[in-house]
């Protein structure tokens, strides 16, 4: 039992996942999927903090497999809760590959969170990529297949960059311990920064997310939404706190997806853009790096994992029942899926940061920290993005799926296990968002677990001033929605694909490669022919001169020899004369 407490909880999930992937018994897999996160949670809650709980030596490196501190605790906790909710959400499905893959993937993310050194982090970092790709592949479409391959390539690239950076880091520091970098100029820092940036979906590195998540399976998208990007957020918080570049990267990240989300028709893709926007808040907070901001990043990550999973769950239920998540084909589903609609609305209220919902107590920390750091332009961008979140996640998702124009679709309510998972997620969204209660609930429960609990508990989200300003922002933005709808200025949903930066490699880059291939297929043979001709001619001339039948062999042998010997001797004499003088 004592040994069990030193096992990285992620490894429990990974072991359960490996077993589940080969178990033909559905019930056994279900027990594993639901039970493993609970066992892992028990280990985490009993783990000593700031101690290397498990160390293994390999290849001359000390791998710290399990180390908990206040930063990794909150991320690990959120991951395990998500893994548990995902397991319940997937109970209706009978698919060994997805069950196994989801468990290993969640386990890898948890294990990476509690890694005490870069090498261990790298190993589980790569495992998250390799294990999660099946959640996309199992959708079974050509589009999903292509997206899965692009996803894998980009994720592996992230791992390779990280390993490269880790090598520089080891050479410079003589240790692999996870320490924050002083600056991006440190050896290996830029490579590791880029590796984290890919996984966190920094602007222009973000397309793998919108490409793959909407094409994943019903349950796959829910699972995917929780781990990869938030693991990157954790890694950034661990190694680059207070890195100024992150402030601007984060701010841009909050703003630009808003514009794509408003015109996107596939509601799961809207959620993928929304994910990007939310991660931007966390990245920005890490860039600010003050205790208040770091608390903001961690709290936001925790709340976001739950409400984003909830939103993906609701859209997954819609996809499961109707076969589509396209806004153009949905509407009026509240009539037949009222529970799903209700849970979706709770998720939407949470992500929009309405007071009494979880987003409010989390996002406030970040925005206050940015204002305190006197970053006014960034502050304005975050505020703008907050209104944007209300547009795409707060209003668009529930409105077009469940209300709006009635599509006439009358389907069954989501399966009970899905509703149960959504209900639990919705409960957490509200539980965390309430004012602190005597029973230990409310936002205080979350704030006590943040990296800087004292600073967090000194912060008051529920002031009259704060509630009023937040309500003003949200209510007037919502009023803008009904006004624009009323006067017909709201752009209608249309079918179609929205171009994004991935055009550069999926179209321009791909076509350039095709063109280069075509050019090469013509020039290649031509060049080969030219070179072959040159060889032949040169060889012919040499042969004509030096072969037994050649020019030099004609006449007397000694004559030719003597001439050449004399000539060589002359050259040698000349060289020695020059070098001597």
């Amino acid at each position, binding site marked *: 039992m004592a040994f069990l407490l030193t096992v990285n909880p992620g490894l429990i999930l990974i072991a359960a996942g490996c077993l589940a992937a080969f178990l033909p018994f559905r019930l056994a897999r279900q027990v594993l999927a639901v039970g493993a996160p609970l066992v892992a949670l028990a280990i985490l809650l009993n783990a000593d903090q700031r101690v290397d709980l498990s160390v293994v030596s390999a290849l001359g490196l000390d791998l710290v497999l399990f180390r908990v501190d206040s930063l990794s605790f909150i991320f690990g906790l959120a991951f395990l809760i998500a893994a548990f909710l995902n397991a319940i959400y997937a109970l209706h499905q009978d698919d060994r590959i997805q069950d196994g893959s989801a468990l290993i993937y969640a386990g890898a993310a948890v294990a990476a969170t509690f890694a005490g050194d870069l090498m261990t982090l790298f190993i589980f970092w790569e495992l998250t990529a390799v294990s999660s790709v099946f959640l996309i592949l199992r959708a079974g*479409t050509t589009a999903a297949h292509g997206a899965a391959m692009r996803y894998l390539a980009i994720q592996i690239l992230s791992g390779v960059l990280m390993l490269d950076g880790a090598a520089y880091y080891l050479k410079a520091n003589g240790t692999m311990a996870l320490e924050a970098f002083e600056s991006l100029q440190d050896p290996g820092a830029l490579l590791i920064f880029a590796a984290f940036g890919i996984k966190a979906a920094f602007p222009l590195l973000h397309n793998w997310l919108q490409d793959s998540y909407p094409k994943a399976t019903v349950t796959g998208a829910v699972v995917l939404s929780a781990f990869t990007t938030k693991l990157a957020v954790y890694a950034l918080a661990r190694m680059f706190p207070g890195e100024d570049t992150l402030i601007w990267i984060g701010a841009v990240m909050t703003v630009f997806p808003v514009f794509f989300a408003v015109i996107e028709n596939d509601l799961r893709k809207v959620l993928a853009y929304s994910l990007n926007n939310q991660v931007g808040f966390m990245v920005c907070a890490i860039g600010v790096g003050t205790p208040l901001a770091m608390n903001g990043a961690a709290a936001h990550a925790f709340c976001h994992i739950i409400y984003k999973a909830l939103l993906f769950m609701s859209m997954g239920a819609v996809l499961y029942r109707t076969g589509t998540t396209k806004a153009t084909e949905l509407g009026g589903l509240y009539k037949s899926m009222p529970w799903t609609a209700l849970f979706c609305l709770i998720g939407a209220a949470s992500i929009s940061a309405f007071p009494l919902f979880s987003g409010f107590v989390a996002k406030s920390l970040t925005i206050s920290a940015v204002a305190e750091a006197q970053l006014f332009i960034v502050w304005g961008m975050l505020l703008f993005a907050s209104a944007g979140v209300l547009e795409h996640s707060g209003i668009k998702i529930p409105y077009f799926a469940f209300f709006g124009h009635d599509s006439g679709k009358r389907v069954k309510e989501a399966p009970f296990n899905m509703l149960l998972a959504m209900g639990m997620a919705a409960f957490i969204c509200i539980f965390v968002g309430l004012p602190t209660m005597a029973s230990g609930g409310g936002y205080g429960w979350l704030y006590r677990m943040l990296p800087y609990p004292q600073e967090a508990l000194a912060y008051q989200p529920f002031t009259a*001033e704060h509630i009023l300003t937040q309500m003003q922002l949200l209510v007037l933005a919502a009023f803008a929605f*009904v006004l624009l709808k009323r006067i017909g200025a709201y752009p209608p949903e249309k079918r179609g694909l929205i171009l994004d930066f991935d055009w550069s490699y999926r179209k321009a880059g791909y076509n350039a490669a095709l063109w280069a291939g075509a050019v090469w297929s013509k020039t290649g043979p031509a060049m080969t022919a030219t070179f072959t001709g040159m060889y032949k001619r040169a060889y012919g001339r040499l042969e004509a001169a030096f072969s037994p039948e050649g020019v030099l062999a004609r006449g007397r042998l000694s004559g030719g020899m003597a001439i050449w010997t004399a000539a060589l001797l002359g050259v040698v004499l000349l060289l020695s004369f020059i070098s001597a003088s």
Partner: protein
Amino acid sequence: MSEENGPGDLERDGSGRFQKRPESADPQRPSADDDMHPVAKALFGWVGLPGVGRMIFWGLAALSLVLILLDFGMSRHDKVETANATGFYGIYGFLAFAFVVLAGWPLGRLLRRDENYYGDQDEPADGGRERG
């Protein structure tokens, strides 16, 4: 056609994705349009009432007004000086929201392409595998 498409109650949609057949009719209940899930009637029964759209519109307008009026009675101490102006957050939210939505018109025209733009939508799933 549908027999070849997949096992059980799965079929393929236009993009070749396996999916459950749309359950357009729940055998438990008649498919009359006003027939709603009992919970839906309790929770969202009001949504379908006549004049609800207008009520939401004017309700939000009134609430907006109240929130801005409340701001007059409160001296706020925001770290950002400009934000202390009365109604700043409301106006900012309104303008930001309107800008995002209105930007959707030109952006949609600029960036929207055919759904099969990348050519991966129409083929059934196995097509890729056979070729690969």
